[in-house]
């Protein structure tokens, strides 16, 4: 029983992020309303950001900011920094980019949805397909 508990303890983060991503993917494909698809798209992208952040996490390590930078700078000679007690900063940098990209895509997709609504007065996928087939 305990080794099963250890395995779960070690991997549950990756399993739950996959479930979250699949919720977003399902919503993007199966939902009928365009706005719901957009929410699904954003959930799908934030799930991938969650995966990257959980790569960088280290157990009992602090946030990637070196506190006594200035105090120790001149006083106690060269500051000795151990990599093990700071969290890996690289995934955080990548995900700052990914969040801003997902908001930019979200904004442009909203503009497109408004243009579609201005033309067809509906955001439902099946009604739109019917309008287009009529033309």
């Amino acid at each position, binding site marked *: 029983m305990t080794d099963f508990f250890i395995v779960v303890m070690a991997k549950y983060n990756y399993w739950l992020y996959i479930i979250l991503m699949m919720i977003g993917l399902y919503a993007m494909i199966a*939902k009928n309303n365009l*706005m719901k698809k957009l*929410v699904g798209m954003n959930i799908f992208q934030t799930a991938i950001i969650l995966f990257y952040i959980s790569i960088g996490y280290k157990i009992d390590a602090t946030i990637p*900011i070196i506190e006594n930078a200035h105090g120790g700078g001149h006083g106690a000679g060269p500051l000795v920094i151990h990599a093990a007690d700071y969290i890996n900063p690289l995934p955080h940098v990548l*995900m700052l980019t990914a969040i801003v990209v997902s*908001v930019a895509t*979200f*904004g442009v997709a909203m503009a497109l949805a*408004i243009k579609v609504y201005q033309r067809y007065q509906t*955001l439902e996928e099946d009604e739109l397909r019917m309008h287009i087939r009529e033309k």
Partner: protein
Amino acid sequence: MIWLIDLIVLIFVIFSAIAAISVKDLLSTAILFGAYSFLMCLLWAVMGAVDVAFTEASVGAGVSTVFFVAAVFNTTRRTKD
């Protein structure tokens, strides 16, 4: 101990994601979407990614929800599914 908080917040995140997708009215979807983003921001703060949490709180939850409400205001609140 940290993984317990992480697990609970993660489960909250999944519930709010499912709720944000399955609720019928778009304005409540916007609110749930904001809640989802704030829970994600909390999750990242718990996992030590403070810069990303700050960005998600301001960019993801703050501005995205405003864009979503502005877009819903200019289209319909009604959804069929």
